[in-house]
């Protein structure tokens, strides 16, 4: 059975190992027998036509849905049935197709929310503002600003998030995901709605964060040229089923993929 082994022949323990994952919604099989392995610092692309079940895969991996079949392991730990915040704390973070920022909060606060576990003070310290409160606040604020700098958002730290231009909102969402301290980043169509300049900037960003934080990325993207450019491996799904997997070259010449995208020729 081809269950993603070709993606990871040269590794002992992958970061994430998904086997035979599936979910059924009232008789409808949205995702079926999904297999995936991602190693350290790897960038994998997940593509497929509209409604193929890509975002459902993300929802399964982040605990929004509980899989009805199969299971998945992250850093050797079984993740089925974990709640979203537990998944995040284990080290998987995501962005959303339709950007979901904390709109009324400032850019800096958006990042601080994701850093919540790193704040070491308890409720008492917070209410009575003990030394620990100020220490922890200052320390984490510095970290948050550092992170914003990577995305060139340091000057916008005190802006209300919804007032940022579109491209920067996307970046902030990625920055926020990074702030959780994750190991695996799930990006849901990060380039959607971006102009070529913004897309180029985004690519540069992804390159930098991969280097700097040594993270792995699973990317959903519609822009095929982008996927071909940056992904080391690509998985193609259609109607919830994996129809192809391999390197960008293999994928681009796969007849099944072409058929799925362009429709069958009779």
């Amino acid at each position, binding site marked *: 059975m081809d269950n993603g082994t070709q993606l990871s022949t040269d590794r002992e323990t992958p970061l994430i190992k998904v086997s035979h994952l599936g979910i059924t919604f009232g008789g409808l099989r949205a995702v079926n027998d999904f297999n995936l392995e991602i190693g350290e610092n790897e960038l994998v692309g997940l593509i497929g036509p509209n409604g193929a079940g890509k975002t459902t895969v993300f929802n399964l991996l*982040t605990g*929004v849905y509980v899989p009805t079949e199969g299971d998945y392991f992250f850093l050797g730990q079984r993740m089925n049935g974990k*709640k*979203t*915040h537990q998944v*995040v*704390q284990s080290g998987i*973070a*995501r962005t*959303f197709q339709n950007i*979901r*920022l*904390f*709109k*009324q*909060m*400032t850019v800096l*606060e*958006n990042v*601080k*929310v*994701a850093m*919540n*576990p790193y*704040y070491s*003070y308890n*409720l008492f310290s*917070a*209410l*009575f*503002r*003990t*030394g620990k*409160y*100020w*220490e922890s606040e*200052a320390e984490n604020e510095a970290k948050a600003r550092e992170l914003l700098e990577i995305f060139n958002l340091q000057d916008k730290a*005190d*802006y*209300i998030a919804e007032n940022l231009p579109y491209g920067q909102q996307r970046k902030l969402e990625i920055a*926020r*995901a990074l*702030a*959780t301290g994750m190991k695996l980043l799930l990006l849901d169509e990060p380039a959607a709605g971006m102009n070529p300049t913004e897309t180029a900037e985004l690519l540069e960003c992804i390159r930098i964060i991969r280097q700097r934080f040594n993270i792995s990325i699973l990317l959903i993207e519609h822009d095929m040229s982008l996927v071909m450019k940056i992904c080391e491996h690509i998985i193609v799904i259609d109607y919830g089923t994996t129809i192809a997997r391999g390197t960008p070259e293999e994928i681009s010449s796969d007849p099944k993929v072409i058929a799925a995208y362009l429709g069958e020729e009779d």
Partner: protein
Amino acid sequence: MKMPQEIKKASTMNLIAVAILLGAIAWLGFAQVFSSYIVGIFWLSCIGIIMATSLNLTNGFLGQMALGHAGFMLIGAYTSALLSLAMVRADVLAGEGVQQLIRFVICIVASALLAGLFGILVGIPALRLRGDYLAIITLGFGEIIRVVIQGIPWAGADGLGQGSASPVLYKTGLGFNNATKSHYMFFIALLTVLCVAVILTFIRSRFGRAIISIRDDEIASAASGIDTTFYKVMGFAFSAMFAGIAGSIFAACYSSLNTGNMGFMASVNYFVMVVFGGMGSITGSIVAAIGLTTLNEALRSFDEYRMLVYSVVLVLMMIFRPTGLMGTYEFSLTKTLGRFRGKGAGKKQEEEVQA
């Protein structure tokens, strides 16, 4: 303390301002300068401030529409009344003066804890629902609390009056007379300031940020590692705790207790304060609580017209200014002073943010 320098300066200034305010209230209260009418308004304003700011925590900051806040106030009021009655009967701290104060403080703490506990008990099931459904379920819980307290033989309709039909509070050692109420003005003001301060520090901590993030986008909040259920219940219970404190003050302020005073309409009344002031603005809640309480009392003889006008204003507000008077604005002493001095340190910052 490792407080940043400019914050240190600002908080010192705030402390001085609050101290002056409290000092003035203490002096005026102990000298019994005010008529019982004014003292009454003062107490009710303090209750209103605590109720509105704490309700704002749930409705404005946590973004969960709760309509049963008065239920927790009711728990606080009856806890205080019954506990005080028990203490008076057992002759523990039953006297006047300092003993009364200590007894009152014990009642307040007990009320806060019990209301908070009920906040957790109600919050865990209720907060699984959202929006309209949450509004209904909290309304339902508020009514249940009211009906149950009313039905309990030793608490409700004829429980507190030691055999008499009316639940008279002065026999419980609460339900202060006018002179005592005037003396207690300082204490009540201090308590109110403490409550508001604690709510503010809560909001401006990691806990508050988690709560506001849930309001802005619950799904994104969970995806940022926030345990949304935990923080929702925490915010809700925290808010209920303050309603308990307000209930305790209520029991000291009135000479009798009646569950009818703290039903759905009371919840709506505090809710109106939050909406008027602006959901998400503590300053707004304080201003609205004082303003509406004063207005309520001033227009007491036109009671029906008053509610008529309120409802019309509320509708107009929803049409033309749904964010309330203050939106999410918060008053800052240093910024305001800075503006007066023309240095505009605060103003500049604000403009930058708005730009």
